[in-house]
């Protein structure tokens, strides 16, 4: 076992997008129970450092697998499909149009202080995102259509960011 092993191997999981989150939680805790710095608080410096590195690594691996978008990106990365989020920003016109409409709706609701509308937008978008993760699971786990999956992941990055903005707007209205 070393830092080069992939995150699925670290937790003893099959390499797949579909994942039992509570199972991941319990595996993560079992690993931390062994490597966490609290187990080595009174140990020598070399051991303390090693423990910190392992615990850091386990935290990072857990975070990557826990969030579906990060998990999908990571799976594609393991298979040599990088998302190229920064260098490749070209998206189909109709998707971008749709995004503009969403953003306008969010801005209107925020400027109008319309809490109810923002919650409605949040729920609608959440539903849309969940359906897209279902599709992504099929592309990654069932049909192995990685190129198509890469495209879907890039769309989801836009949508997750938008959802985040809606939540920020909701938060600022509550304050």
């Amino acid at each position, binding site marked *: *076992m070393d830092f080069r092993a992939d995150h699925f191997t670290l937790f*003893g999981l099959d390499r797949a997008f579909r994942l039992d989150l509570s199972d991941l939680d319990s595996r993560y805790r079992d690993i931390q129970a062994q490597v966490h*710095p*609290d187990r080595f*608080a*009174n140990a*020598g410096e070399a051991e303390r450092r090693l423990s910190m590195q392992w*615990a*850091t690594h386990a935290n990072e691996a857990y975070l990557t697998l826990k969030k579906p978008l990060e998990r999908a990106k990571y799976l594609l990365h393991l298979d040599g499909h990088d998302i190229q989020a920064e260098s490749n920003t070209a998206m189909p016109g109709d998707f971008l149009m749709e995004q503009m409409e969403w953003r306008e709706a969010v801005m209107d609701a925020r400027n109008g202080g319309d809490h109810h509308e923002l919650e409605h937008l949040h729920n609608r978008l959440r539903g849309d995102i969940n359906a897209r993760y279902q599709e992504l699971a099929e592309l990654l786990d069932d049909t192995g259509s990685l190129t198509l999956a890469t495209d879907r992941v890039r769309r989801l990055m836009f949508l997750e960011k938008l959802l985040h903005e809606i939540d920020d707007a909701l938060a600022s209205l509550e*304050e």
Partner: protein
Amino acid sequence: MALFQIAEPGESAAPHEHKLAIGIDLGTTNSLVATVRSGIAICLSDEHGRPLLPSVVRYHADNSTEVGYDAQTKQAVDPRNTIISVKRFMGRGLKDISHVESMPYDFIEAPGMVKVKTIAGIKSPVEVSAEILKSLKGRAEAALGGDLVGAVITVPAYFDDAQRQATKDAARLAGLNVLRLLNEPTAAAIAYGLDNAAEGVYAVYDLGGGTFDISILKLTKGVFEVMSTGGDSALGGDDFDHRILCWVIEQAKPQPLSPEDGRLLMMRCREAKEFLTNNAEAPLTARLSTGEMIDLKLDVATFAEITQTLISKTLQPVKKALRDAGLRAEDIKGVVMVGGATRMPQIQKAVGDFFRQEPLTNLDPDKVVALGAATQANLLVGNKTGKDDWLLLDVIPLSLGLETMGGLTEKVIPRNSTIPTARAQEFTTFKDGQTAMTIHVVQGERELVSDCRSLASFELRGIPPMVAGAARIRVTFQVDADGLLSVAAREQTTGVEASVTVKPSYGLSDDEIAGMLKDSMEHAKDDAINRALKEAIVEAQRMIEATEAAMKEDPHLLNEAETAKIKETIAKLAETMQGDNRRLINIAMDDLGYETQAFAHRRMDQSIKKVLSGRKVDDIKMGEEA
């Protein structure tokens, strides 16, 4: 220095005696020390049976100090040399401190952290805090009758890096081996959770003398997981006293107050506040040095009214912490109240209204943090039996980031990340031929660097000249289990390595600590050299015991040559321990550390593999070292 002490639940790695460990709640108003005795956490009292130590230090001209109740009674007589609520100054510049105008001290602005000029010279908040810690350490040593292995010191969860580092420095200065800095609400959750076998999501509302924290924790069998935390590190019970003082001045309109009168009135205000916990009306009388007589009555309704804004100021972070945890008020199973200030009825009512449930007040709000810290300290030194073992997963309270173009913050590690954590970010050069780059590390949530707390600024030199945008500079942030940050940067395209690790600038250097230690020891007529030698011998002994226990437990992880080499190194170390040369002991310890490194890796691998094989997974490779 122990090797990995990993034991199966229910079985201990080596027969060991009970190690002396303590938990310290270093509070704004009061501090406490606790330990675990016969499996039960207890606060240690002074010779008069008082568990609290007022966090007050008075300096005398001969550099001697009074700490606690003695100092507290002198505060109105000698306010300039009697430092109260020093926690508010830890890791803070003058501009960060509120109500400076009503404080009697002679402040000196120093880089990173304010200092106070006293009759015994200029004192940093770290030194003042160290006096409080020393007093508690002495109390513990007297009560436990032996050398302490280590201490867990609590800090407000919302303390930033500067405040944490200052606290750790103070503990080192007091001669304590810091096992861990533990967040106060987390410590309270441990005490509460273990006592009540609590399961579910809990909120800890911790209003101390000078700081406010809210933490949301998930308690499951054997795991305390902090989901989010928030707070205000400059809001506490002191501010309620200050509100009363403002009200008194408004009502009585006295002439401008002298420092002595200011302190006297502040004490009266605090007494009135405490009186109102169980009474409808509090008398507030004082005779000032000007001959003026203050004679007022403060009722509960007025008190609630003048402190209303302070209470809503605590509810903002509560809402934010819930949002960060992805929860609503109704998801919270219980609200644990911590800190003496939560005795105020208007606070209990506001918190109860917000969470729509009676807050849990069955714990002593003054003691619960120290008790939790002692329990954790006991676990960290390895005094455990099979059943009381738990895992604590805590977070950092504030995002960490870097300054980018235009004075904007680029977040590298977001708030509420589980620690320890590390994150790397790549940056590039802005100009052709640029060979140096300034890296400015900040902490906070705001977009503008000027609105965040500046932690450190350092220059990465020796970048090979390249066209703009060609260099790749990787900046790595590492936050350890104490919530403390270190930063490393390195240019990686050319193999020319320019790497630097910084400790944020406000932290004291090892030399400064050594200097202060020396001063304080000379003052105490203590023999610093002998003490250091004794410490080294104890450390070496611990290391030998742990190594031998590990070899006994996992002999199959070493080949004959390695076993022989380790045994030989142990023998050498044991030999140096007979002498009185600390340097030789340290060198021999380093050697043993080096010789057992591969063994340590293998033991760690083995323990991780055990977790996985328990789950019947067959494709785990092993043997390679990280």
